[in-house]
């Protein structure tokens, strides 16, 4: 949260009544976690507690200068498909990719019959060199899969993550690791202007449902940011905000 609520000089150009978006998100995330805890209460019965599986999901921010927004995490079966290269993303994923808001992404997931549970990390964005861990307990199934998504905050609509990662085969004590690439949601032009990016380099607008939707409107591998240091003079970014290919390492450890 510290990245987005600083009273930096640029933030004074924003409309005064606009709430720091992460205050709202943290509150909603906490609500979601509480809800899912209620929903899972049956799993904690003594009769079937031996079927519980607990996964610690840790995401390391491997960028140089891109805060990662709160994690959208979904545990599901193989029928759930959160995004697909070359196709338009859902409104929930657009909101996550443009503003870092996981609410609708997780709502969409929870409406899917193949989804077991979902959660958001609730500590706000986490910066380069930091990590965020979320622990999730579900009924174990060999077919469990994991999806994780998080916005690169100093971009228009870039997000990193992994989808449909099979974790059901992990035995207690096992861990698995993967490197996460960066996607372009295709829902917003990559203008890199200060008014269009929510992160600390810009403090601009996050989600806008109507902005640029017809420009590309398909999911691609992100081509990276250009930045002012490389000749895009209208960019609010500098060379420190660039990345190559992968933005995060995701480690899953089964602890129960």
């Amino acid at each position, binding site marked *: 949260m510290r990245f987005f609520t600083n009273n930096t000089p640029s933030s004074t150009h924003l409309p005064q009544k606009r709430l720091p978006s992460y205050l709202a998100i943290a509150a909603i995330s906490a609500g979601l976690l509480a809800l899912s805890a209620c929903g899972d209460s049956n799993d904690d019965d003594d009769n079937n507690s031996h079927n519980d599986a607990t996964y610690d999901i840790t995401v*390391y*921010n*491997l*960028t*140089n*200068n891109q805060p990662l927004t709160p994690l959208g995490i979904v545990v599901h079966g193989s029928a759930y498909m959160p995004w697909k290269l070359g196709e338009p993303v859902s409104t929930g994923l657009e909101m996550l990719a443009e503003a870092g808001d996981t609410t609708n992404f997780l709502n969409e997931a929870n409406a899917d019959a193949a989804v077991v549970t979902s959660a958001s990390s609730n500590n706000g964005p986490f*910066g*380069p*060199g930091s*990590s965020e861990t979320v622990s999730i307990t579900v009924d174990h199934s060999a077919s469990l899969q994991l999806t994780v998504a998080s916005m690169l905050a100093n971009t228009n609509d870039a997000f990193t993550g992994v989808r449909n*990662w*099979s*974790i059901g*085969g992990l*035995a207690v*004590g*096992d*861990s*698995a*690791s*993967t*490197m996460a690439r960066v996607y372009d949601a295709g829902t917003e032009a990559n203008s890199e202007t200060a008014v269009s990016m929510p992160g600390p380099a810009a403090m601009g607008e996050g989600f806008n449902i109507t902005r640029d939707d017809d420009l590309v409107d398909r999911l691609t591998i992100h081509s990276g940011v250009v930045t002012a*240091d*490389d000749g895009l003079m209208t960019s609010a970014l500098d*060379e*420190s905000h*660039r*990345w*190559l*290919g*992968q*933005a995060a*390492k995701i480690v899953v450890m089964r602890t129960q």
Partner: protein
Amino acid sequence: MNRNTRSMARNGFRKHSLALALAAGFTTALAAGAAQAATWDVTITNLTNGNHFTPLLVTAHDSDTHLFQVGMPASLPIEHMAECGHLDPLFLTPEVGAADADTIDNPATGLLAPGTSTSAMLVTTETHLSIVAMVLPTNDAFLGLESQYIPSEAGTYTYYVNAYDAGTEANDEMLMTAGECAYTDSGMIPGAPGMDAGMNGTGVATADSNTMIHVHRGVLGDQDETGGTSDLNSTIHRWQNPVAKITVVVTP
């Protein structure tokens, strides 16, 4: 990403725990079979357009050993390697030890130029492989194969390797013109072996925002050989990942 193309296709993800079923099976087999040594013929190819690799360290070890870990701070010996290409401090660590049958020092006998390959033969009873070398010309970029599990079955295994930023020196992209390289935060690029760098750059970055080992954001460079911010050439010295291809031929 260190990609084992065989096991990735089968499992869908990379496991790196000792408890990995395959590794556990292999360890058990080793214990029962009194540690039969395998031969690993390791070939390293420089996939970049215009970057040299400093002398390579190729070493086999167990699953608990890590020369470095992405997302964690670089050790001082890794800093020496990433900023100056110096391997001596790594050979003084318990993780590496002295050069021997499964720890090969500098197989290319010097720099590995873009587009070229070198090979090292390891005879080992170990299960994991690590490879490191500095990428030139950069401040503190290194290629790293991080504790990669190598199957015991005969076969050819291929891995692609990222360039990582050690997080220990600002990427000012300024080239040293005199003196010896030292591992200091304000250090400069120790050399441009392609003799294709500029001079008098005023400096690109003054600090790393991420001081852990992370995926290198690449160099910026410019087209001003006698000024600008960078001494690097933007059309020669940039790269995309992967920067190296590692092939391991296992002969049990």
